[in-house]
């Protein structure tokens, strides 16, 4: 493969890379899709929710053939106390037509998604690590790989190498992520018979449920857990900010075991068999951590560019959309015969005009509030106070309701350290969620 030149090289066959490769190959460009795993998806991990709209935007005719697990008809949010939960959920038949989202497994989905790019003409080169970018001056002109004679040349390199993005680091467009810009998530796939899943989660056929939980389960660290229903497995995991993990000295898998013992979770996974343990970083720096998205001869997409909306656990859809948009910009660059920053900037513009930028900007203060506020307050004391307040309100023990209400408010104030602090946290939270 030495010295062969392509229109584009895509590094990483995850959702961003495959979307980019598919988009360009379909337009007739010569594209290489590089992947370090044995096959696309071999190294990849997500919580497990895949959204239809952004997949359909890439593959209008094929999206319905994607290998998915269950279509989500109900989403639950749990605020966890030690042995309790205050819950909120929404179920709606309308989520079926058209589907809003599904649960999925990356090993199946990523292989299928990359195979679409291959079918469109992208040249797959798997089991190959892109070790560095080849540059000439300030232009990226190719990649060096860990194969013998493994230099590949192209007009554009689309960097889709995931959260660790060693290539992005080499470009110097973003500094090393700081521990407060990433979360570590650990996850188990737990096998359970279909009927058990259906009964326990109140489901018919291929319907599915997602549960996100926060509170006592993260042991005083900023983080969120999830439990999703697949066909005959459950995806159970929890992610916490790496700076908190460093401080707390809690082993990630012990945190997961702690979650498994919570009475709200324990009964749902009871009798299940762990089929796979996994861990991955999630880029959670928000909009302020997003680097410039293109330059002379390169674009950067998906996790590698911190394009994750962690408030709504959306990542793979931002990845697919950014990959598609990068691909579209490269197609335009090919038309113009100009692969410089001037033309590839089109990609930045597309992202800026899309939901990606708007959503990330909306929540850009979240990262700061998580950094400033005591995680014990946000993830232990307040959730606990809400649980205690709910317990009191529903407990019929002869105490008049008026007194209970006073007590409930008292719990919240105490947890925050006074009325003023409670208001302050509330205001900060509101601002963080509204740009």
């Amino acid at each position: 493969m030495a010295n062969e030149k392509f229109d584009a090289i895509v590094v990483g066959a995850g959702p961003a890379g495959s979307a980019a490769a598919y988009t360009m190959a379909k337009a007739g460009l010569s594209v290489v899709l590089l992947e370090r795993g044995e096959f696309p998806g071999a190294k990849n991990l997500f919580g497990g929710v895949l959204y239809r709209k952004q997949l359909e935007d890439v593959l209008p005719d094929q999206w319905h053939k994607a290998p998915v697990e269950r279509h989500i008809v109900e989403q639950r949010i749990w605020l966890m106390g030690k042995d309790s939960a205050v819950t909120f959920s929404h179920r709606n038949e309308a989520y079926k037509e058209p589907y809003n989202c599904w649960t999925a497994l990356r090993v199946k989905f990523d292989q299928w998604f990359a195979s679409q790019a291959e079918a469109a003409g992208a040249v797959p080169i798997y089991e190959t690590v892109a070790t560095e970018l080849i540059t000439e001056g300030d232009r990226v002109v190719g990649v060096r790989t860990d194969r013998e004679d493994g230099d590949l040349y192209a007009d554009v390199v689309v960097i889709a190498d995931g959260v660790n993005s060693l290539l992005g680091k080499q470009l110097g467009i973003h500094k090393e992520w700081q521990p407060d810009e990433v979360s570590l998530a650990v996850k188990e796939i737990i096998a359970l018979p279909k009927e058990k899943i259906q009964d326990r989660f109140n489901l018919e056929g291929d319907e599915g449920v997602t549960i996100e939980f926060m509170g006592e389960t993260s042991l005083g660290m900023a983080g969120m857990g999830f439990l999703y229903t697949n066909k005959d497995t459950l995806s159970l995991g929890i992610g916490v900010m790496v700076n908190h993990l460093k401080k707390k000295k809690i082993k990630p898998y012990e945190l997961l075991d702690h979650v498994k013992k919570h009475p709200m979770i324990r009964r749902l996974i009871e009798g299940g068999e762990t089929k796979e343990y996994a861990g991955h970083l999630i880029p959670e720096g928000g909009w302020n951590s997003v680097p410039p998205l293109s330059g002379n001869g390169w674009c950067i997409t998906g996790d590698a560019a911190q394009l994750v909306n962690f408030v709504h656990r959306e990542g793979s859809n931002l990845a697919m959309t950014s990959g598609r948009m990068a691909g579209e910009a490269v197609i335009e660059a090919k038309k113009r015969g100009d692969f410089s920053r001037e033309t590839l900037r089109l990609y930045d513009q597309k992202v800026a005009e899309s939901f990606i930028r708007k959503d990330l900007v909306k929540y850009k203060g979240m990262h700061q509030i998580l950094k400033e506020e005591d995680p014990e307050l946000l993830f232990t004391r307040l959730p606990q106070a809400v649980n205690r307040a709910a317990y009191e309100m529903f407990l019929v023990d002869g105490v008049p309701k008026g007194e209970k209400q006073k007590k409930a408010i008292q719990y919240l104030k105490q947890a925050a350290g006074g009325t003023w602090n409670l208001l302050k946290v509330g205001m900060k939270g509101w601002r963080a969620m509204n740009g």
Partner: protein
Amino acid sequence: MSNSIAEKLFTIRYKVDDQSHLIIKDQQVCLTCETKECTHFCPADVYDWTGEMTTVAFENCIECGTCRIGCPYYNIHWVYPKGGYGITYKYG
């Protein structure tokens, strides 16, 4: 149904290279490191402190990158395993 980390790691398929992709740059730094955080935050227990040096069980690595970012002295040289080596998830 909680199981030990050894049992958890047993659920992952590995193709182990004979060369480590994780290298402690300077054991002297580990010697003076007070917190030894890598022995806690690694989700696969790759790092262990023997009292004299940090050992690296790179065979267990699930390639998350936490140690690359988490080591307070950036004392871990972190690259991907060779193409096709390392973990291969069955579900993901």
